């Protein structure tokens, strides 16, 4: 294959990756932005979403699309409930102290991994894609499902944008993000907003995971990479900024996809991680963010 088509393929792969990454990172960014805490267990909510999608999809007989669609609804709901429970039982009790939250979410990370290992097992298992159609380009055929992932991700991103900027719920969330104390004074139940945001962040990761699971198999250790990449995206994009997160996810997803096709994936990861660490050192507000208040 000539360079042009090869590059086109790498770009498509990068776009799929960016689409999933944008959703996962947006979840982390929301929690980070509104609650000012780092959720280290975010990658495990992603993993849980994928594992649950497998469980739901295999328990429903009939056309694969049916099982997939049911999984797309149930899996984020269950993950949201798990996140809500861990927020109420743990995070609330350490008063969202940043460092205590990190230690607590590391603990939650391990507990979720253990539960997945116990009930799901150590194997990687695939979910059948809802439809199996290949789009014929002149040089290669490409899975239509992968392209639909990009579309689905764009729809969820748009819906989240609408929720944040055009609805009352979004207004309350932004008020809490801006100044939790004043928000309390205006009668906003900050405590319940925190619980909701934490659950919403986890659900976004779960949606991303259900979308990816027909392409990448579900495994109990799959949460590690999405967590690191989401950190990278959130840092580059600036905290709590939806536009920054989307742009950064595109940037990271595309460059990761393209670099991994042409170079060693380990080297790509080294370069990306190092670059981001240096961004954080020398430009802590992110490349697109305004300076933190």
């Amino acid at each position, binding site marked *: 294959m000539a360079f042009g088509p090869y590059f086109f393929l790498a770009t498509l792969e990068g776009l799929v990756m960016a689409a999933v990454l944008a959703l996962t990172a947006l979840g982390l960014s929301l929690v980070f932005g509104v609650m000012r805490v780092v959720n280290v267990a975010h990658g495990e909510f992603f993993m849980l979403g994928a594992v649950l999608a497998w469980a739901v999809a295999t328990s429903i007989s009939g056309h694969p699309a049916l099982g997939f669609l049911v999984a797309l609804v149930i899996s984020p709901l269950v993950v949201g409930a798990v996140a809500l429970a861990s927020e109420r039982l743990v995070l609330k009790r350490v008063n969202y102290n940043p460092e205590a939250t990190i230690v*607590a979410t590391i603990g939650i990370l391990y507990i979720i991994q253990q539960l997945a290992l*116990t009930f799901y097992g150590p194997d990687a298992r695939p979910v059948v894609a809802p439809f199996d159609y290949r789009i014929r380009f002149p040089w290669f055929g490409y899975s239509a499902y992968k392209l639909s992932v990009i579309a689905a991700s764009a729809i969820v991103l748009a819906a989240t944008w609408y929720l944040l900027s055009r609805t009352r719920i979004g207004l309350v969330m932004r008020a809490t993000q801006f100044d939790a104390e004043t928000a309390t004074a205006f009668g906003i139940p900050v405590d319940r907003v925190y619980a909701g945001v934490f659950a919403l962040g986890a659900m976004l990761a779960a949606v991303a995971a259900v979308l990816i699971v027909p392409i990448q198999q579900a495994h109990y250790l799959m949460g590690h990479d999405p967590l690191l990449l989401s950190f990278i995206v959130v840092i580059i994009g600036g905290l709590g900024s939806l536009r920054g997160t989307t742009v950064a996810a595109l940037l990271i997803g595309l460059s990761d996809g393209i670099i991994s096709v042409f170079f060693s994936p*380990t080297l790509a*990861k080294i370069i990306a*991680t190092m670059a*981001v660490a240096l961004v954080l050192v020398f430009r802590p507000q992110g490349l697109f963010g305004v300076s933190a208040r």
Partner: protein
Amino acid sequence: MTGFGNFTGRVVALHIAVVALLFALQFALPAYHHGIMARIMVLAVFAMGYNLLFGYTGLLSLGHAMFFSAGLYGAGLTVYHLDWSVPAAFAAGLASGLVLSTAVGFLALRTTGVAFLIVTMMFGQVAYLFTLYFGDWTRGEEGLTLSQAARQLGPLDLTDPTTRYFTALALFTVVLFVTLALVRAPFGRVLIAIRENEERTRMLGYDTFRNKLGATISSGVICAASGAAYVLLFGYFGSSFAAVQYSILPLLWVLVGGAATTLGPLLGTVLMFYLVDLSNDLLNSRFPDWDVSYLGIVGVALVLLILFFPKGLLGSVRDRWVRWLP
């Protein structure tokens, strides 16, 4: 500071008693626990290094596996590929830790709070990926084993269990008293002041950046010493020691034992090592198809600790009963 002066005798006596107890255990322990204790003492050195930065200076790092593995690879690779002697390799391990912690300190200490944590985690991740990337020399996840012939310290054979135990104890003792001296010296008091209120410490005229850099470097070198001793005593090194799990373990050990206590790291390492070991056996024999690994136990321990025992065992003991505990 005068308040502490009165108790110097008691404090030193307590530490000597702990070392004497470990010395006596060498003769009392059955073979299996003897081997585990040697390992625990080396890993407790790692925890003590971590404690210097996390407990005393208040800087939460999630990348300390890189300092441990700097020592591990610094010593391991020079023995394996260059046939260096044990003392030279140990020095190479310390030097790697010194260089790495100086570089990381200069960069990471420009950030504070959550950013510091993420930056150290990313540097740790880069170090881990490097051990994979240079797989031709390191053999990546599979790792390398040092031969018995390469692990001779003069007339001493480091593969012999008794020699190994005493070497580990010697390293542990040195580091224990070095940290005790460090945290009671003016340098240590400044670190604690930085933890309590960095702005105020700076206003009092202390160069907080330089002191934090000093803490990072001391912490890094101690962790590297632990890594170098680990590979020389137990003869195996691989990428898994550089993974994020080995950055979280010292945090857990320090939290269990009590952050900012000199003996907490040892206590925490002993307790967690045996807790994971025993509960693994117990749960796996009773519920064989649960696949219980260290994951669940470490996870539950972390959550319970942070909820109910945020100061750790010795931290709570100090708060309630023994105020002079260092």
